[in-house]
């Protein structure tokens, strides 16, 4: 262990504690590989380019102790959705027909781990039963609702799905935390002709530090439809990586956010087009209040071979009050010459003319602001199945009414 500790240039207390947690786990080469990948960077800080707006090292100086608030743990808006709940971390889960646990201790080394230090940490520290490999061989009847550990002070979990050929798989993810530090890793390997719907609900309190990293591999003729809403935490980072490995795959990765005073939400994504004829659409819309900070980092990488790629990225943010902060970094890196790629980014305030028009019709100012903001971010949830989209929009409406 001494050798590993030496990998940290200047370990803070939290990093030493993390090294201690690692030392307490059964050693094997894959776990070691994951932890070393983490240790190269340590807890990333603002001088690490991919984390320049989200200073995780500063947020986790010592491993926090969680103060669990019971109402937080059952607070997922998806609780009312018609779905099969799977609790991750409560032993080996019972799965619906068409799904099976292929391994209770998925210890493969994480691909590209050096570029994902916090995910590598999550993979390294996930114990047996907290690190599952799940095979989906038939389309489940209902969506699956993944609920991650909310009870432990610090949670490290990894769930890898293999979605077999032609299967339609719909997943709701509830990322809810009260205090503590967590790194959740999700992997979806979507085989040819299969489709994945991924809907995300993230909510935490202002003492939680929460990182969730999702890596999605898309084969030929697959489709991915992702959307969700996030409210941030002391620091929350919801990261998505999508790899187009096959041809004719379609991905849409949308998201909405509402970030209030004392909250920080980072939505980072990377989409790699390695093969021709694939499409990606991304629409992220959100709003921040005074004292809230939202980060959007989006990157499309198009390899030389990936001709006929069509990829559109848009991020639109509203600053609802002075003092709200939005950092946006949209990037395109394109090596193919026959592609249609674009990105757009706007940050602004609510339209005063529209507000006056609504008030002139009798709608009080706060209600008008809530209605306009809700409609604004709602565009990012338009493609969701109606019932699920409505659940999230209601949540957004209530949040806005409470705060505006």
């Amino acid at each position, binding site marked *: 262990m001494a050798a590993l500790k030496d990998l940290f240039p200047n370990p803070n207390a939290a990093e030493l504690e993390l090294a201690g947690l690692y030392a307490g786990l059964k050693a094997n080469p894959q776990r070691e590989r994951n932890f070393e990948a983490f240790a190269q960077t340590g807890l990333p800080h603002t001088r690490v380019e991919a984390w320049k707006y989200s200073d995780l090292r500063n947020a986790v100086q010592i491993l926090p102790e969680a103060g669990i608030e019971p109402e937080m743990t059952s607070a997922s808006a998806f609780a009312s959705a018609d779905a099969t709940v799977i609790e991750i971390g409560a032993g080996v889960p019972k799965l619906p027909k068409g799904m099976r646990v292929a391994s209770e201790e998925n210890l493969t080394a994480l691909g590209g781990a050096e570029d994902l230090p916090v995910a590598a940490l999550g993979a390294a520290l996930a114990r047996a039963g907290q690190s599952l490999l799940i095979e989906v061989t038939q389309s489940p009847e209902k969506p699956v609702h993944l609920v991650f550990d909310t009870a432990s002070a610090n949670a490290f979990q990894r769930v890898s799905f293999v979605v077999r050929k032609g299967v339609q798989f719909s997943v709701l993810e509830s990322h809810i935390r009260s205090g503590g530090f967590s790194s959740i890793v999700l992997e979806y390997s979507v085989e040819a002709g299969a489709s994945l719907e991924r809907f995300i609900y993230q909510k935490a309190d202002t003492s939680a530090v929460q990182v969730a990293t999702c890596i999605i591999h898309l084969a030929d003729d697959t489709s991915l439809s992702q959307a969700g809403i996030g409210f941030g935490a002391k620091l929350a980072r919801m990261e998505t990586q999508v790899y187009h490995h096959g041809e004719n795959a379609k991905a849409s990765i949308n998201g909405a956010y509402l970030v209030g005073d004392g909250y920080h939400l980072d939505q980072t994504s990377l989409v790699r087009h390695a093969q021709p004829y694939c499409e990606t659409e991304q629409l992220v819309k959100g709003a921040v209040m005074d004292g809230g900070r939202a980060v959007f980092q989006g990157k499309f990488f198009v390899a030389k071979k990936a001709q006929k790629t069509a990829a559109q990225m848009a991020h639109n943010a509203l600053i609802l009050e002075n003092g709200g902060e939005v950092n946006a970094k949209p990037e395109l890196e394109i090596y193919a010459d026959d592609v249609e790629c674009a990105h757009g980014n706007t940050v602004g305030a609510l339209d005063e003319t*529209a507000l006056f028009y609504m*008030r002139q019709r009798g*709608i009080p100012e706060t209600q008008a602001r809530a209605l306009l903001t809700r409609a604004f971010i709602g565009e990012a949830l338009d493609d969701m199945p109606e019932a699920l989209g409505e659940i999230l929009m209601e949540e957004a409406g209530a949040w806005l009414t409470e705060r505006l």
Partner: protein
Amino acid sequence: MLKIENLTATVGEDDETKEIIKGLTLEVPAGEVHAIMGPNGAGKSTMSYVLTGRDGYEVTGGSATLNGDHILDMEPEERAAAGLFLSFQYPVEIPGVPVMTFVRTAMNSQRKLRGEEEISAADFLKKSRAVAAKLKLTPEMLKRPVNVGFSGGEKKRLEIFQMMMLEPGFLILDETDSGLDIDALRIVSDGVNELRSPDRGMLVITHYQRLLDHIQPDKVHVLANGKIIATGGPELALRLEKEGYDGVLSEAA
């Protein structure tokens, strides 16, 4: 009904402050329709914004009352609940908010401010169907976001739709005829005329006589340089149409 006395108002801030309304006095009794005509820059739109409480306009003197209530101290939504309705010269797009949601929210907000019960979903639907049919608005249009992708004529018809749904006590129509073809003008004026009633007042702001052929005013006022410089019957509008504003302006000077 609406009584404006010696109103003065400025627009802009600090060094940019400019007085636009310069001692405006006007009274519209219940049951009457008055027209306000005047050259560009006379302060017509400013007057409508000052009366409805838009940000950026500051009242520096005088008063305005609706049924005896001082409206200038109220928030815009309170003025709306008190019965004041402004039909915008350029109706505003509200992306993502469907017409039906918008109008129902507005109606219930007004009722709440007045301490009344909300309208039931069934009653609202029934009423909106009847009004939409009169204005030749399709159910599909009422599902679309407010004014988004609407033509000029559709936007004005939607303003009338809102008026007929909300049934305000006092209407200000700001250049409602702009951007309308003959057919749309007729639909819009029929809607306005239908709203004429002994307990409702209207102020019709327009550049042209044309609208007043359809909506016959009881009185015509000429607004120039921030105040009313002439008042007369419908014949005043005809005279303005024939002679332009110059004649009336020089008489007043």
